[in-house]
Each structure stands twice: as C-alpha cells, then as structure tokens.
C-alpha cells in the first residue's frame, strides 16, 4: 500500500540536463537533488551513463519518464518498462514518475503528452495500467498532471477529480506540476487554487515548477522561460497546503546557466521556509 512516509523529503532540486553536465561534475554545485529524464539514460552505455553514475555518487536522484504512455489504449510497452526497471536497479532513485497522459496510438509514438478524457471509464483503464506498471517496476510510482490545450466532450469530472480518482484507484503517488495547473487553469478557465485544494495531500510527493509561454489565447507549457510570478504565487499556496514536498525546477529549452536554475531552487526554498514558522500539518487536517 502507498505510504507517503516511504518517500523522503529531498529538498529543492533541478533537472539534470546536458548543458550542465560539465559544470556539475567539475564544480559539484550546491543543490539538494537531481531529476533525470529516464529515457535519456535508457541506453546501453557511453557518456550518459558515466555522467549519471558520477552524479548519483554525489546527489540523490529521481527518475522522471516521458514515454510510459500510461493512458494509451495500446498494450503496455513491456520492453520499455523492463528497460526502466533495469535503469532503476542501476540508479536506485528515490522514486520514479511519469505523466498521466497518452503519448501514442496504433503502435506509433507522438513523443508528446496528450490529455485524457476525465471520466470513470478512463480512471479504470489508467489505474489498471499503473498498477501493472508498479508490479513490473516493483515499487509505487508517481503520476504527474499534464498541461493541456484541449478538453474532451466525454469528460464527466474535473481534472483534479480525475487525478485524485486515478491516484487512489491505482494506489500511486502524485507529482503535482504547479505550472501545469496554472497553464490549464488559464486554458480551461478554472480555479488553480481549487484544483490544489482538492488534491489528496497524503499522495503528493513532489512538485514541479517551470516556465511557460503566453500566446494570448492560451498558455503553452514550454519550459523555456523563467517561472512566472503567478506560478510562484500558486506554489506558495501549494506549500501552505501540502507542507514539506520535494520541489524541482524544470527547464528544457533555451537552458540558461546552472546558476539561474540554482537561484530558482533557492527561491523555492525561501518560499517553503517562510511557511515553516507556522506549518500546516495537512496530513492531520485532511484526515
């Protein structure tokens, strides 16, 4: 059974990205932990695994995937899951996460994170696949809420009801992406705070913070900008609600110097610490 206490509080980390490899290996910068994109290291050998071994010797590491396609109606990709398990045995991450989405159909891959209809049928379908993935991976995983630009007529529940229902039926953890909630709240006109307040605190293990692009009619989750003020404000709301949750800064395009990401991680820590004087014990509150 999923137990929140099984997942350590790692502090404030950043995504491990190629432009920073040399800096990290040479300077050993002060940062609490790193998140890797699992697929970047699911290779037979060479430089990526050398770097990973060196980083994990110095820092806690978690594995974050983009290709589990847990919401797809294609058969689960067992070869992929076994590869993920092999990487996890080598890496011994604090946890493994992927997205609550589908990313392929009819045997093909979109290499993107597409949303699912929010209804009972999808909950049952996805939860069963998460349970199977957890069996193969021999551990509970975290699922992340995705950014989206469309909604389905077939949806019968809100996104936050859907996230909660899937996590509870699959008995898995939640990686709550604060930027994705902010983006979706704008794109689909709902209250981001209401979303956060409805998520079961006892399942939230990690936060993501990232930047997005404003396209006027919609926000695009691009991970290529600094984190916007509105997202920081929403993060503060989440910190108040969820207490100590490991937080990660994501930046995937136009990647700046490591110091910029480290500064964002420090800002997240300051926000977190500012609420520690009057901590909200959300586990007790939601019981």
């Amino acid at each position, binding site marked *: 059974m999923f137990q929140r206490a099984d997942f350590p509080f790692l502090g404030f980390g950043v995504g491990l990205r190629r432009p920073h490899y040399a800096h990290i290996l040479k300077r050993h910068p002060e940062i609490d932990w790193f998140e890797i994109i699992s697929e970047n290291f699911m290779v037979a050998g*060479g430089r990526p*695994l050398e770097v990973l071994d060196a980083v994990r010797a110095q820092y806690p590491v978690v594995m974050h995937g983009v290709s589990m396609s847990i919401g797809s109606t294609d058969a689960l990709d067992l070869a992929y899951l076994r590869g993920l398990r092999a990487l996890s045995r080598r890496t011994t991450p604090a946890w493994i996460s992927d997205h609550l989405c589908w990313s392929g159909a009819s045997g093909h891959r979109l*290499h993107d994170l597409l949303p699912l209809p929010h209804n009972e049928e999808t909950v049952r379908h996805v939860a069963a696949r998460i349970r199977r993935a957890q069996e193969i991976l021999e551990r509970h995983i975290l699922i992340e809420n995705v950014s989206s630009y*469309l909604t389905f007529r*077939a949806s019968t529940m809100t996104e936050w009801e859907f996230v909660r229902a899937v996590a509870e039926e699959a008995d898995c953890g939640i990686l709550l992406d604060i930027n994705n909630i902010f983006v979706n709240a704008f794109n689909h006109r709902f209250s981001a705070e209401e979303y956060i307040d409805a998520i079961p605190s006892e399942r939230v293990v990690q936060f993501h913070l990232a930047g997005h692009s404003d396209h006027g009619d919609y926000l695009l989750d691009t991970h290529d900008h600094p984190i916007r003020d509105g997202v920081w404000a929403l993060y503060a709301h989440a910190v108040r609600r969820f207490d100590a949750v490991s937080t990660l800064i994501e930046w995937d395009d136009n990647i700046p110097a490591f110091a910029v990401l480290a500064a964002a991680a420090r800002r997240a820590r300051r926000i977190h610490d500012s609420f520690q004087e009057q901590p909200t014990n959300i586990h007790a509150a939601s019981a």
Partner: protein
Amino acid sequence: MPLQLKNTQALLYRLVTASGGVAEGLERERGLPRGGLGAVIGGDSRITAAARLSIYANMYFFRLLEVLKDDFSAVAAAVGAADFHNLVTGYLTKYPPTEASVFWAGRYLADYLRTGPIRHKVPYLADLAALERAIIEVFCARDTAVLDARAMRATVPERWPSVRMRGIAALQVIETQWRVALALRTFSAGRKFKAPARGSSTILIWRRDAKVFFREIDAFEARAIAKLRRGAGFGAICASFVGKSAARDPVAAINAMLARWLRDGIVADARFARAGAKLDARERRGIARS
C-alpha cells in the same frame, strides 16, 4: 479496453500527424463522429477545437524536427532549413516514430534519403545521414573493456596467432559512395558545410573515453576490422593484409595497424586477456614440471 477511448486516441493520432496539418487531416478523415471534431473536443470563442488540436500537431512536428536537426546537423546544414523541414515532413510520414525514446526517431533517415526524392538533388545526403546516425549509435553503445598494449604484451608473441580478438561494442563500419567523412570533419570543426566529393569509402566509427571518432580505412583494414568484429583469431586478422601492395613490409604494416587499433581503443580486452592468462598458466605449469 475502452473502445471509445481507443477510437478517440486513434482519431487524434491521425489528425495530429497529418502531413498537411489538422485542417487537411479533417478534410480526408472518415472516422469523425456526427458533429465533427467539435463532438470530441471542446472549443470556445477564444480558440476552436481544430486550433486546439493544431497546437499538438505543431508540437509533434517541431519537437521531432528539433531532435532530427540535432542528430543530423550536417544533413540539415547541407540542404538548408526549408528543404530540411520538407524532408522531415516526408520522413515522418513514411517512418513515424514507433519507439519510446526519441533516440530512435532518426534510425531510418538514411534509408529514407536513399530512396526519397531528394536523392536526385543532393545525392550524397544518405551517406552523410548514415555517418551521423552511426556516430549517435556508437555514442550510446555498450561499454567494453579495452585491450591496451600492456595487456597485449603480457601474452608472449608466439601465442598471438592463435589468440582470438574481438572489437569493442562501440564500433561501426559503414560503406559510402561519397567522401562524407572529410566533409563532416570539416563541418564539425565549425566551418561552413562543403559538399563531399564522389568516391567510395569505408568509414570506421568508434568510441573511446566517451568521445566518438571516425576515419576512412582502406580495403585491407576493412577486411581486418570485419574479422575483428566477428571475433577471429589474430592470425586470420593479419592474413587480411596479404597482398597489400602499398606495404613493402607486411609485418611492419600489421604492427602499425595493431598499434593504431590499440591507440584507438577498438580491441576488446576480455578474450585476448583471458586467452593470454590461460597460456601463461599453462606455461607456468610447464615451468613447474621442468
């Protein structure tokens, strides 16, 4: 399996990957429900259902375009941005990704270029893509312990002919009809891409110390490398040099080749070291008996 979800995902996949965009995909789509796309996806006054799906279509294409541009930077430079865009559009239509990792997205690009329409305009492009792809694959190939000169010296030279040798896993050989190795080397050094000359070549690509190297090899070394990759005996590998007219002294040529291979780090350690150890043990037993 939820049939409605399956049909929805299949429909969206077709529309997102339609080579002419979502609007064109909608025109030829036969699987739309009554009410069209709007019956599946919600739209509003700000942005229509088709426009919402187009966001995904753009992300699908441009993400893969960026991946392929990164993996095949010389190919992209050779044809220019517009032709590369069109080339990727055609490639993704014929070879849509099927693997979980984008690492595999460009696996068939050289095959596509060899038969695709651009081969008439830029005939060397398939060879260039094959070399760039081989570099990517070698970069992430399995690690292998490398035989060094000291380990080789541990085996008495008289035993070498019977010792089996094996190439490292991070080693590929490609045959080309154009001298793309020089063209890529020049481009990688930061100079403007210059079209290669026509001419058959065999290119060895390998990894050492996490860096990938490549060089043209002659027919004799190509034969020797082929045997090395099959795990042939050292004697058989040396026989590849029989008839090498350029070398006045075949033994010197073999020694030079071996020294180069050891320097390049393309010989795996395991078999040679193991064989050498066995021989040494037998020798030790012989010494003990005497």
